[in-house]
């Protein structure tokens, strides 16, 4: 039943990716910069959603992984490592960090978890500001110069694609099902044998990986970062707003949210020159009030999402013969 819809969705995604890949050759140089940032935010939103949406723990400190990844990559690049080993180092450090913090943090729930993770950003920011020899302190850090606009653009597209696949694979796996059950009722999940502590930690580690890699690509593109630029409020909250307004817990949600928010921002920026931030805030409040489940769960979009085979309930009978169902 869903086969037609699914094929259409994959075709749309492939076409979109093909279009984005062709963008630099179509002469939109501003578009390339714009899309680069959009995809960075999208990847952050999508990886945030593994903990924030699937597991139901609001991780306000998700950008810590981004910042850690960015700084590690910058430092390793300055030490003469090539980009891929630098990114690998960033990934491993972020994953190790996620492992270490998962145990104490996941003893908290709800608002306490959200606040504790939010505090994590400041913690790492203070560290980077004060470890002057390593990070350049508040003055920031520069990487070996060079124009990597195009290469980083393709790299971030690839990472976003892999993250989409990862998010999809997790959602359709037994592990993903366990994450959903923890979101719904952790105590009952535990009573039915779900290894909650282990799985919560794994979810955090998995979600830290794309964020740290994207952070590395970001610094490679920008060639300069400061504590404020990677540990700021903008980078901390925007991806979360995107995921929540698009719809958490479904892969398509962060995608819709990221595109929508960026378009709204861009529109307000140019059309409402002095009040764009106020307008942006108003739009967010209105969306939160009237679309609590996110854009993809609204009356108009939900049927489309379901038809495309991207809904929440997994159809277990794709290949089943009719006999088994009846």
């Amino acid at each position, binding site marked *: 039943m869903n086969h037609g819809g699914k094929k259409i969705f994959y075709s749309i995604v492939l076409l979109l990716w093909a279009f984005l890949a062709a963008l630099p050759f179509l002469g939109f140089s501003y578009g390339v910069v714009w899309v680069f940032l959009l995809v960075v935010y999208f990847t952050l939103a999508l990886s945030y959603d593994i903990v924030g949406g699937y597991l139901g723990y609001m991780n306000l400190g998700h950008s810590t992984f981004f910042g850690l990844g960015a700084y590690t990559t910058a430092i390793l690049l300055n030490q003469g490592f090539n980009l891929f080993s630098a990114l690998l180092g960033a990934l491993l450090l972020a994953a190790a960090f996620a492992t270490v913090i998962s145990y104490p943090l996941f003893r908290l729930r709800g608002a306490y978890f959200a606040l504790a993770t939010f505090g994590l950003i400041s913690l790492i920011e203070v560290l980077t500001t004060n470890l002057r020899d390593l990070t350049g302190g508040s003055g920031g850090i520069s990487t070996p110069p060079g124009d990597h606009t195009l290469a980083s653009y393709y790299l971030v597209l690839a990472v976003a694609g892999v993250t989409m696949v990862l998010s999809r694979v997790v959602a359709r796996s037994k592990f993903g099902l366990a994450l959903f059950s923890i*979101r*719904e*009722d952790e105590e009952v*999940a535990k009573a039915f*044998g779900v*290894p909650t502590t282990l799985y919560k930690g794994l979810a955090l580690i998995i979600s830290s990986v794309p964020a740290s890699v994207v952070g590395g690509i970001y610094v490679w593109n920008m060639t300069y970062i400061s504590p404020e630029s990677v540990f700021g409020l903008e980078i901390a909250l925007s991806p979360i707003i995107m995921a929540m307004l698009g719809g958490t817990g479904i892969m398509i949600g962060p995608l819709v949210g990221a595109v929508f928010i960026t378009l709204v921002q861009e529109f307000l920026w140019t059309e409402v020159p002095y009040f764009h931030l106020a307008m942006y805030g108003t739009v967010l409040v209105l969306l939160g009030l009237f679309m609590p489940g996110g854009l993809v769960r609204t009356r108009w979009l939900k049927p489309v999402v379901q038809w495309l085979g991207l809904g929440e309930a997994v159809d*277990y009978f794709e290949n089943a013969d009719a006999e088994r169902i009846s």
Partner: protein
Amino acid sequence: MAMNSLLECREISKIFGGIEALTDVNFKVESNSITGVIGPNGAGKTTLFNIISGALHPTDGAVFFRGKKISKIGPSRVCRLGVARTYQLVRPFSSLSAIENVLIGLGFGRAAPMAKKDRVDEAVRILRMVGLEEKMNHVAESLTLVEKKHLEIARALATAPEVLLLDEVVSGLNPTEVTRTMGTIQQIRESGITIIMIEHILKVVMTLCERVMVLNYGVQIAEGPPKEVVADEAVIEAYIGRFEDAQEGFHA
């Protein structure tokens, strides 16, 4: 003899702050039987279930399953050993479909996990047993109360339990649903699963249970075959009070 009982509670006490929810509760459950736990509200019935299933640790005493102590090993391990439960106030995984709820039990609640390809078939078989086959792709949230209760039974059955703890699965249902649910419980028992059930509807307890245990203020006041237990004076007093008390109240 002690080794023959499948599940045994030895001198279980549970104290919450200053309140003694359970005091020295002792009972044994034989294999392939249905045991009823009755008592007025607040008697400690659900607390007892929480202790057997490992969600709470007893303050004193211990629970033994097949002669092995299962208190203080945590609910996950108790579940894998073969003791599954349902909840009085239903707690299905709301946003997951019925079949996914069952798949959680199948995938995580068993000592020996089932091969991936067989899991869906087994989940459908279990849902058919409780009459939820038609609704398997429906989100749990959208089910009616009776369907949610049946879904909880299905999720518990999915863990291949030897002992099934049913916490008021019949209460709150209409007469037709009660009859159907009783049929399901019989069927589960016939498949070789031992059942302990908390229930308020005496008709159900009298029909289904071989033995009944009565709790009042955390104290076990009677235990035995249902016919004897309902004739027991302490039980009648716990439920409707003493005759003399009523007379005194009348004169005052």
